[in-house]
């Protein structure tokens, strides 16, 4: 029987990695993910986790070593944040094109400059094109559960892609939350032995990573794209199986009181829980509001998002990262473009909030919902996203 434990989320994730019986951990410490790698090192040092722990000298080498280890046919875990993710950016593309099911615990932290150690989503937004599966968690329990599911999804032979589990830096990594931690015996048979078809094995020599001449590059990219798109079925099946086995429900798109809502906020990450408080308050005042979380970021859940949003009157997309000089908000631009071809679609407005870890007050969420109502009243869909709380 799983025990409800008060445990720091980072340590819970490390526990999930241990219970998944990884073979190789290759990670470089960076605020705010340090507690994960420290706990894993402790576990290896005490013999609780039987894995090779590579104390790499940079994040770039961390992911490179992960690829090497994964191609030998072992289960691999890494973790990073912000600058580290940016440093390994080159190799992120290779991890997915070489089809290595690496699992990364990504503590979302703002990218420099100016230097920031606090939470926002600019790091993960820089990796949209890398071909990784990307899933958001909203609280410690989800971060813990999704780590197991990440291995299951990635190692599925139809998928064979790396998976990143996003969780907010400091807001989740350093929080002690009540989490149901599985007993080792409960979770032991959840994951099966990782058995890739192709591996680096002298008994069966293969060449991996050859030069992709123009004659085949297009087909290679299409193959990768199909694998990522088709993984949505495996992801949904994994969520369903998890619910049947352990009772907790996960969806590609999470909603809170959004079924009959007029105005919803679309966002990602742990602020989902704060918004739920404001939704309840405003519902009591008579406003029909709701919240929609884009839990699955890549592959983009076009169908699920459409069915959650199509009959809303106005949606306000809350971005926690900025695209300077361009469409301002990454989630805004993708949601807008996903609904571009629809004859009937809600009004779409964008806001930027919580950049660089700035707190978003509950009153500001109310302000954001009211922006949605204003848009309905005036019929005006502003093109620029508004930055909430900008002191100017």
């Amino acid at each position, binding site marked *: 029987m799983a025990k409800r434990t008060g445990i720091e989320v980072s340590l819970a994730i490390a526990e999930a990695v241990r219970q998944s019986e990884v073979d190789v951990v290759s990670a470089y410490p960076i605020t705010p993910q340090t507690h994960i790698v420290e706990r894993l090192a402790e576990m290896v040092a005490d013999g609780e986790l039987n894995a090779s722990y590579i104390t790499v000298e940079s994040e770039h080498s961390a992911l490179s070593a992960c690829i090497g280890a994964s191609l030998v046919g072992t289960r691999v875990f890494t973790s990073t944040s912000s600058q580290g993710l940016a440093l390994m950016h080159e190799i992120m593309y290779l991890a997915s094109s070489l*089809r290595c099911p690496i699992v990364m615990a990504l503590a979302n932290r703002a990218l420099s400059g100016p230097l920031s150690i606090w939470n926002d989503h600019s790091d993960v937004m820089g990796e949209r094109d890398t071909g990784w599966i990307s899933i958001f968690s909203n609280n410690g329990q989800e971060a813990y559960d999704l780590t197991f599911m990440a291995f299951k999804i990635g190692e599925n032979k139809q998928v064979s892609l790396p998976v990143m589990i996003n969780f907010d830096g400091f807001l989740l990594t350093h929080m002690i939350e009540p989490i149901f931690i599985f007993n080792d015996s409960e979770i032991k048979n959840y994951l099966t032995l990782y058995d890739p*078809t192709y591996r680096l094995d002298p008994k069966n020599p293969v060449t991996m990573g050859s030069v992709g001449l123009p004659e*085949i590059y297009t087909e290679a990219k299409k193959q990768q794209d199909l694998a990522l798109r088709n993984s949505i079925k495996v992801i949904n099946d994994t969520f369903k199986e998890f619910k049947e086995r352990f009772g907790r429900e996960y969806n590609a798109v999470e909603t809170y009181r959004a079924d009959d809502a007029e105005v919803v906020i679309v966002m990602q990450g742990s602020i989902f829980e704060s918004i739920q408080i404001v939704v309840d308050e405003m519902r009591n005042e008579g406003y029909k509001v709701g919240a929609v979380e884009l839990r699955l970021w890549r592959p983009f859940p076009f169908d699920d998002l459409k069915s959650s949003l199509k009959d809303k009157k106005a949606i306000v997309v809350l971005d926690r990262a900025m695209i300077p000089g361009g469409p301002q908000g990454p989630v805004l631009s993708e949601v807008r473009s996903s609904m571009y071809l629809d004859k009937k679609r809600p009004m779409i407005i964008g806001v930027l909030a919580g950049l660089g870890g700035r707190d978003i007050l509950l009153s500001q969420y109310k302000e954001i919902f009211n922006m949605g109502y204003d848009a309905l009243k005036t019929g005006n869909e502003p093109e620029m996203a508004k930055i909430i709380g900008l002191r100017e």
Partner: protein
Amino acid sequence: MKIKEKPKLEELPFATIVTEPGTSEYYKTGDWKTLKPVVDKSKCIKCANCYIYCPDNAYEEDKEGYFNPNYDYCKGCGICVIECPAHCIGFVEEETE
């Protein structure tokens, strides 16, 4: 050619992994040369210098212990001509058809 340079999407292997070792042998680099080595077996001392110094592994040992260049792969670099201690390898112009 037994090997597909332009496979269709369904034919492209998983992650473009080449599963057959040594498929470079399907590509004959022999047409790169302008001069070709010719071994004079009467002077050859069977020392294997030509075999060991060839970057393209073009020399094949026969039953008698002589080494013969495989013109399908020999690029005509001339290393064997220079390194042969018996000076028995001539470097002649390749005939064009």
